[in-house]
């Protein structure tokens, strides 16, 4: 069993320790007997979307996000083809905005997105860093994390989270958050989101196995320490006031 992970631009799109998402998913897969190869292209490289089973990009600064978008644009068709073939894709933090129709920066310049989804993003001059508790549409229990964004995203019809009970959603406080369509997952939650949420890691693992037609043992991939960290974080956050 072999899987290829394509980690896009980790040298500049890993602003909040996002590389951990790849490290932890890789460890989970290897524990399940999968031989994992990770490729980490730079802006100057042509990413091997055709050979990838899992594509990941983390958060970057507003400037780096535009640079990543510019670097990816010539490869949009290859990425679109990979998505149509069911590749599992996860873009987190500001990388989420890249897959939409456009990003309008704080100065008013419109940056056309990759167009994998129809939503649009407007940057603002105010950041809303905050802890997050989110209600997933595809798994239980609630997700936890942190968000460090300065934007509002409109037009998401299929959010990854139906609401955030703590923090800021795509457009409004408490509203729906992220985006999901088939095997394409995106969220503004920054940092090691799948490390903090073992159920999310398990869902991604399941999708990767399903796509390959591999059987997945029940309860596979459960790491007691990750589960415990999740429970502690959720319990502590759930006891806090919810307002921004």
């Amino acid at each position: 069993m072999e899987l290829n992970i394509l980690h896009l631009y980790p040298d500049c799109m890993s602003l909040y320790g996002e590389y951990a998402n790849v490290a932890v998913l890789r460890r989970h897969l290897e524990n399940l007997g999968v031989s994992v190869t990770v490729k980490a292209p730079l802006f100057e490289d042509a990413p091997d979307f055709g050979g990838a089973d899992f594509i990941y990009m983390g958060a970057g600064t507003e400037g780096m996000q535009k640079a990543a978008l510019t670097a990816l644009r010539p490869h949009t068709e290859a990425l679109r083809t990979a998505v149509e073939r069911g590749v599992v894709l996860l873009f987190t933090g500001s990388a989420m905005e890249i897959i939409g129709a456009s990003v309008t920066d704080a100065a008013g310049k419109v940056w056309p997105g990759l167009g994998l989804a129809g939503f649009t993003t407007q940057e603002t001059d105010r950041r809303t860093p905050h802890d997050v508790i989110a209600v997933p549409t595809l798994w239980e229990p609630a997700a936890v994390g942190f968000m460090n964004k300065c934007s509002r995203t409109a037009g998401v019809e299929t959010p990854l989270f139906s609401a955030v009970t703590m923090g800021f959603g795509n457009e409004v406080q408490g509203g729906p958050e992220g985006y999901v369509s088939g095997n394409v997952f995106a969220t503004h939650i920054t940092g090691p989101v799948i490390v903090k949420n073992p159920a999310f890691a398990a869902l991604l693992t399941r999708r990767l196995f399903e796509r390959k037609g591999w059987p997945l043992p029940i309860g596979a991939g459960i790491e007691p320490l990750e589960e415990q960290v999740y429970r502690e974080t959720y319990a502590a956050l759930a006891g806090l006031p919810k307002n921004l």
Partner: protein
Amino acid sequence: MRMMLAIVLCKLLRFAGKLVGKGSSLPGQYALKLCPDVLRRVRLPERIIAVTGSNGKTSTVEMIAAILRAQGLNVVYNAEGSNQVEGVATLILSHCTLRGRMRGDVLLLESDERYARVSFRHFHPTHFVITNLYRDQLSRNGHPEWVYDAILPAIHPETTLVLNADDPLVSCFARGHDPERVKWFGLDECSVSTKEHHGVYHDGARCPVCRGRMAYRCYHYAHIGHYSCPQCGHARHAADFAVTALDLGAGRLTINGRRDISLAFKSIYNVYNILAAWSVCALAGADEDLMAGVINNYILKNGRMVTFRLGGHRGTLLTSKHENSIAYDTNLSYIAAAERPCTVIVIVDAISRKYYTGETSWLWDIDFERLNAPHIHRVMLYGRYCRDIALRFQYTGIPAERLEVGEDIREAAERLREQGEEDLYVVTCFSDRDKLLECPSVKREGGN
């Protein structure tokens, strides 16, 4: 009249606040409400020096104050660290005559990097020192480029910038500024320099101007070093004030090839803080002999390093800052360079003193892999976030049998008192360090 009332109000509130031990922001806050442009109206000293950046502000400001006072100047500065506009207003107005003339030869300000533009809306520094910009409290600061954008509007065309030449982002402040009004400080390639980058992440990998791949001739630490962008030409400037030789182990440095300085605290941070202070004081006309004398005898009061005894152990507590991976990395390097067998204790109990946060992503930015060394026999992970740290340590390559995980810091100290004699190193934040140092079995020796 309104200005005078604001000054009187500020002085009264300051006096009352001192009596009850209250903070230094409130008087300025009320004075600004009464007279919003009071800071424009008052007459300030000819020299106004401001210091901002991610790290080293307080130490640099204290060193500048010590040098300029030794020079015989009356220096007024925010020693209490109230570095936002309200604190700055309190400082200025409480040193003003009722007619609005501030007493003192030099106004010296530690300025919060995010709010400098608010502080300098009504007046501007003659000299603005910017020490460095890197990942620090990102849950509050966003990211270094966001902080850069926040500082930029605070820079007045007439201000002389005193910039860290070795920081590619800080050096961008010179773009568009009169070159005659930019002075650079930096470290020559020396014993601490490496050809390879060290660290979990590399914020200098891309040029901050054009996003091309940055080339480095050498690194001093993290992304601080000698860089040049082959694509757009953004490159390190030659330093007006340079550390031309450095022996960190022996605690010696040389400035501009002619002034030897002894380091009371052998840290690369301290080297840059000294250099920044030296640069701006030299620009203010301080005498080199006097500066060298002050720095040689300067005792850092920041409490970064504390030595203690715990049972048969000799301990060193190295203060980092939570949410600041570079501060951690610097201390981990110090421990990794030690040769005697030791145990390392990492404590993360309260990331913020005020509230709980689940934001632990910064733990993944710390290069804990540096602790995977033969002389480090054991790493103890303690405090409320012990399991978050343990999860991070699963990816360091350090064998699980060398790790110990627990919440109760006192219980760990008690067990250490009873067992062993190896050296101890403690890495933690100001906010958590007393949780160990105030354990009954810990006997402090040095530091503050």
